[in-house]
């Protein structure tokens, strides 16, 4: 365990009846980092967050927040964090402005100037009653309440799923500012461009386990490279090399995805028939995630 880790989870397990939500999940977020939590629906992202908040009790493994136990000591730990749930539900008879102040007061107050600034930047009408807000506006209420606080840790569960692109941009600015203040941010998201722009490191989880964790560059490093080449002659024997996927040969043009270990063999085979043009690119984030998410494609 590292003293500078804000979040330190290892081997976390949780079952709901017979359904296993977490089966040994690991997650480590050092202070000051923006960490992306990625995974398909039902992977266990929200369960992880709820255990971190002390709302659910884990069945095994350990989860530490600021070095403390979120189940035993929620109140003091919660004063240091702010949370935006994935599905924001507001009190129907409280206005958005009242809700922001109320949530702030539960955490020990918020910066009024910053609060008003955020309300303006997110173009939120604070006079409306909770029941009158759309999904995106409900999310803005929760975001303003969280971002206006002095919290050391922001836990954001798919915070932009209801925001329009302009508001997403505002959100990104705000996260950057929070980071500048020194806040640590755990961001669960499906929006890959957002993750790519914001996150220092990501953890990818599936079926309640962490399948990979690192910077995006690191993740890419261990992933397949896409190669497109125009050759002098039709290639020979490419399909027999282990670690070559999605091979397409159209006369003298070849496209395929290659595991890092197979790169050398593929390049040699291509060179043998004469390469006229060659482009290779790292996997797009989308390919990366499809690779991790999909069942059929996992290379264990």
């Amino acid at each position, binding site marked *: 365990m590292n003293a500078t880790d804000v979040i330190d989870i290892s081997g976390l397990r949780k079952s709901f009846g017979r359904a296993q939500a977490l089966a040994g999940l690991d997650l480590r977020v050092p202070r000051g980092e923006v960490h992306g939590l990625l995974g398909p629906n039902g992977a266990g992202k929200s369960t992880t967050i709820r255990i971190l908040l002390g709302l659910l009790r884990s069945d095994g493994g350990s989860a530490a927040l600021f070095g403390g136990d979120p189940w035993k000591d*929620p109140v003091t730990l*919660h004063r240091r964090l702010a949370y935006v*749930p994935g599905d924001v539900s507001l009190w*129907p008879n*409280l206005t958005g*402005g009242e*809700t922001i102040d109320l*949530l702030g*007061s539960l955490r020990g107050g918020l910066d009024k100037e910053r609060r008003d600034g955020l309300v303006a930047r997110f173009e939120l009408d*604070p006079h409306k009653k909770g029941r009158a807000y759309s999904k995106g506006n409900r999310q803005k209420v929760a975001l303003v309440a969280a971002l206006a606080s002095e919290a050391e840790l922001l836990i954001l569960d798919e915070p932009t799923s209801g925001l329009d692109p302009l508001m997403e941009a505002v959100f990104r600015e705000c996260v950057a500012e929070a980071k500048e203040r020194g806040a640590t941010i755990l961001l669960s998201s499906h929006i890959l461009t957002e993750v790519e722009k914001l996150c220092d490191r990501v953890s990818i989880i599936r079926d309640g386990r962490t399948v990979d964790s690192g910077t995006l560059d690191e993740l890419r490093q261990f992933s397949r490279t896409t190669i497109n080449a125009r050759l002098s002659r039709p290639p020979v024997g490419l399909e027999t090399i282990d670690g070559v996927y999605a091979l397409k040969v159209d006369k003298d043009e070849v496209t395929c995805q290659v595991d890092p270990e197979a790169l050398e063999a593929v390049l040699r085979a291509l060179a043998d028939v004469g390469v006229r043009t060659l482009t290779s690119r790292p996997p797009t984030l989308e390919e990366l995630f499809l690779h991790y998410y999909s069942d059929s494609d996992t290379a264990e």
Partner: protein
Amino acid sequence: MSTVAGSRQLVRLASRRDRIVLPIWLYVLAGLVGSSAYTIKGLYPDEASRQSLVVAIGAVPTAGALYGRLVDDSLGAITAWRVGVLGGVIAAVMSIMLVSRHTRAEEQNGRHELVAAGAVGRYAALAAALQLVVTANLLAGVLIGAVAAVFGLPAAGSFALGAAIAGSGLFFTGLAAVTAQVAETSRGANGLALAFLGLFYLVRAAADMSTFTWLLWCSPIGWLEQVRAFDGDRWWVLLLPVAGFALSVALAGYLSARRDYGSGLLPVRPGPAYAGADTRGVLGLAWRLHRGVLAGWMAGLFVAGAAFGSFAKDIDAFLDSARVKKIMTQLGGGTQDPVDAYLWTIMALCGLMAGAFAVSVVLRARSEEAGGRAEVVLAGGVGRLRWALSHLAVAAVGSAALLAVAGFGAGLADGLRTHDVSGALGSLLGAALVQWPAVMLVAALAMLLFGLVPRYANAAWAPFGLFVFLTLVGPELNLGQVALDFSPFSQLPRLPGAQLTAVPLLWISAIALAAAVAGLAAFRRRDVG
């Protein structure tokens, strides 16, 4: 008709969702009539005993405050007198809850949007809800008739009684369809319709306790009495609730076509941009959530207390014979003075109402949790214990305030008539507040269920319903003291008039405290969500 296309599937969906609740309501209604018919037959076997009862009830208009006037001395008429109004109120509450649940509640939580986007007519949801609730009322009517007939009452009268109770349910089905258009939330729609029910009940009580008997025609609960089951069986009176239902449904349809989806008829005004000092912190939130409901209940209990309190003075005037006095004392449940016995009954009723409020407040904690709103609060610097206690605190303080205004209203009204305001205020405030430990016991039981089995927290209404039954109906069913003592409300000192003994208050409080502590401890240990 294309405007109700899809309603058949929606009726099926609704009846599946209500497959447990609906039979319980029907069982309560049929059980109430059956058990009363059976025990009244045992209590008043001969003509003479029945006549003396009729004399007692007839001589004292106030005795009819709760149940209405008793005119005929047949077994059937006594049964109908005993269960008619109560059955009508239960049918009304059932209808109001069910209509809101399948119309406004669905719209409010967005599920109806999913349905309405299908090949479903504009009025399909309303039509489906009405079809379900009307069927439930008809079933209840038939069941009541059959049960009463099985216990040996004349068949025609039995079914007239069933129809009269179903008629009350039918009228309030229509009324609830209208309030579901007016209010924006199902809570508001329920509240509005229940306020009408309370008003109609008071109009009926005023009619039965005064010379203005024509007032009975102004209340759907009064119509129920005017059917005169077992005493003429005036079936034509049922045209009134049917006509009322038809008019309400037409109005509801008209209104629903003239409002936007998801909104009510009352305009939504913008609110404050900042939270006031009273909306901060976890107690502030609980106060905001409950204050509107509490204000409504306080107004209702003040009016009820004042109305029933003002009738107290009339009782002595009618007590001319020793026999009447004796019977009244028996009905009242043992206290010596009939006025005190009457006032005790009223205060016990107010205690039960305060209990209903307290249970609903504690159960709000569960709906906050299930709705995902507890999560954001508990993720703030708020301990679970404090959050759960904030709701319990509102239940405790709110129910004490309710009892105080009921006692104050009754004392004021009685005192003004007897020219002894301070004396009446003192004795009735005490009589009202002595109910408080029992109120807190039902609230604590709700907290216990919330902590242990959150999904079934609503089962807290079951012990409460049992206590209502034992307190209101139990004494006349000769259930025996052991059974009656099961209800904390029966254990309380019978103020005014009786000795104020601390022992029952202490052990009821002790059980309440234990249940609350156990519930809170269980809540701290379980998963939230």
